[in-house]
């Protein structure tokens, strides 16, 4: 990644971020379209690290990003980006990279053209923009195809081009709206690695998704939106801990499910067992956290051979269901 002193925009000289404010700050923000409330009364501040923004389709993730990017005006409350109102002043975007959800790109351009043209909007010279574009395209793993037209790209390549375009100004804040959607497994891994790497560099990264397991592979720090409301914010495991009192299912696949069941049945947290097949065991528990941490010991001490442990209902829907008391 480039060093931050390379920024050449005049705006960055004039405009200064407010260091006492979080990078992204929402204070009582609501956004409604007529009678539809896309976001209601959101208050949060985000700085540093990777944050996953989780929510079903229509939960308000994109609305939130568009508010940050000054595309929408909040119906109520304050949005601050580096301490500045983004609806009124585009200057903070000198430090922001945005990967929109939209599929549409300028298909007639080559990847290098696309990234370097928009890099020049940061005030870079033609040569500088070209140099930076080559650098970020290499960073996202597209160095072989920089002179190919975007129209000929696969979905994953297009997604990575969009990410390169967002990184060209070496931003402090990177926002990615559903970056994994439609990516093939290989592109998915590349994009995830890029995001994790950005987090390690100390950048503030905001990633939205509606798939919990995807976000889990990237970060533990999450924000959950549901029907425009903020339902949970913080560490994913801490959120799960809070859900201890709620029945959970743990699925174990091993050589002999029945002998494993005998050893587990005595555990106080377990209230139900079932065997969908000879090699599969489903455990019902009210204390997910404690059982989950003790399970590996139980299995190893009793010499069981286990190939898989997972939580079949631990997707976003069931998590939301518990968080919202079943209204999801």
């Amino acid at each position, binding site marked *: 990644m480039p060093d931050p002193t390379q920024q050449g925009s005049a705006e960055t000289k004039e405009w200064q971020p407010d260091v006492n404010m979080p990078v992204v700050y929402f204070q009582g923000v609501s956004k409604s379209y007529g009678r539809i409330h896309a976001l209601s009364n959101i208050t949060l501040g985000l700085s540093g690290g990777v944050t996953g923004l989780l929510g079903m389709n229509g939960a308000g993730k994109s609305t939130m990003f568009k508010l940050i990017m000054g595309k929408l005006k909040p119906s109520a409350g304050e949005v601050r980006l580096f301490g500045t109102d983004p609806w009124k002043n585009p*200057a903070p975007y000198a430090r922001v990279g945005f990967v929109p959800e939209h599929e*549409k790109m300028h298909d007639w351009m080559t990847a290098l053209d696309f990234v370097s043209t928009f890099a020049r909007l940061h*005030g870079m010279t033609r040569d500088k923009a070209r140099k930076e574009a080559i650098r970020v395209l290499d960073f996202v793993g597209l160095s072989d195809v920089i002179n190919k037209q975007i129209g000929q790209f696969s979905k994953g390549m297009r997604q990575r081009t969009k990410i390169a375009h967002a990184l060209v100004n070496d931003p402090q804040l990177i926002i990615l709206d559903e970056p994994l959607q439609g990516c093939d497994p290989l592109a998915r891994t590349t994009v995830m690695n890029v995001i994790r790497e950005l987090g390690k560099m100390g950048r503030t990264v905001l990633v939205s998704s509606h798939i919990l397991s995807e976000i889990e592979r990237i970060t533990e720090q999450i924000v959950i939106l549901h029907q425009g409301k903020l339902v949970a914010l913080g560490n994913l495991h801490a959120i799960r801990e809070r859900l201890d009192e709620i029945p959970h299912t743990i699925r174990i696949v091993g050589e002999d499910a029945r002998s494993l069941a005998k050893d587990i049945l005595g555990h106080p947290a377990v209230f139900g067992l079932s065997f969908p097949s000879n090699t599969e065991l489903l455990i019902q528990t009210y204390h997910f956290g404690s059982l989950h941490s003790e399970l590996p010991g139980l299995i190893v001490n009793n010499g069981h051979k286990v190939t898989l442990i997972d939580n079949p209902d631990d997707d976003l829907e069931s998590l939301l269901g518990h968080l919202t008391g079943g209204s999801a």
Partner: protein
Amino acid sequence: MSDKPTIWRALDRKAMAVAEFTLRQQRKRLSTWVVMGVGFLAMAVLTMFYIDSMMRDYEAIDNDGDSRDFDMDGYPNGQEILYGTDILDSDSHPGLLNPPVAPDDPSKWIDEDDFDIESLAAGSYGYDDDGDCRTEEKTASQQDTNNNNIPCDVKVTEPSYYNGFDAGILGDRGVDEDPDDDSYAKESIHRAFVLALGKFGFVFLIGIFVPLFMATGLVRDEMTSGTMHYMLSKPIARSEVFLYRILGFLGLAWPYMTGMVVLAALVTGFFGPSDGFFRFKDLGVWMAVLLASLLAILVYAMLFCLLGVLWKHGIILALPFAAWELGMILTTLGAPDAAILRFSVIGWAMNIVDAGAALAWSDTSLLLELGLWAGGSNNAEPLTGSLALEIFASDSGLGLTPLMTIVVSICVMLFQAATCWFLGGALFKSKEID
């Protein structure tokens, strides 16, 4: 060049980046080339008609009846008038003079005395080329039938398009009385065509329709397709995006318009009537046409882009406006000083063209009036070409000198463009983009 960042250098980089991007984007679109191709074809067809009218011979008409022989004595009336014999008495003809004069071929008395005009102003003009006024047979009072104490001249009083038929022109009998129909027709048709093509072809048709099809979507299309997100997630104000998109459009539309006007100037310069191989005296008019059409494209592009931002079907708002402008350009032909023209774009553009024409062809109004006067005899019809010239030539409506008219009109059109930019930028800024 130092690389120290300044506001201007950064602005310049952004402006060039967006303008270049827009230019390339337009170039990639088939519709761009279709619109421009249709524009070129339309102008080419009009020019074909012009070339045809320049290649054609205009029938010489005996405007004053001098080739006829009322008394059937074999001598045309003109020859009898020249020698002072009676045109109605067959026993009075130049053959009876001493020494006797042989009768002329009647065709010699068609187009026998062309207009002798140098420049436009009230005063005394004309020269009796065929000598039928200067003849010694005539008394001083017969040589000065218009009573201005100058023998054998044409008296012109304050020529204007509104004086009506020959009201401002009174010639001494026999002076410039039978102009050369062919040369008059070519000169006036040429001027009428230059004005018609300049005003209706370039300023109106291309000036409106190229921005209509290419500029209305400059911002709107990006908003609808979602690609605007890339541009707007950069540190650039929306009014800047609006302006630089227009600049990119002009980067294509202005050279296109310039090329077409230059081509038209070359074609009409080579085919138009002139003593040399090229008609240099039209260049001033073409420069005015170019200036007016470039400014018109600028104002219309700003306006149509604004309408596109206002509503996604902005082209529907632009069409009634184009109709309004058509009404206004027609108004400039008949009533160039109508106050309503101040509320149009085309009215100001026409001021520039008319002022340019007044500078380059200072004698157009006299030429026009002479054509309507057609020698002044009672049965003279307006000369071929004079009606066409009457339609397309008009005074610039501001009542200022031509140069001042051009300066004022440029300022007004730039102000119109700036206003549209300001409004369009403000409107764009207030738009939420989903």
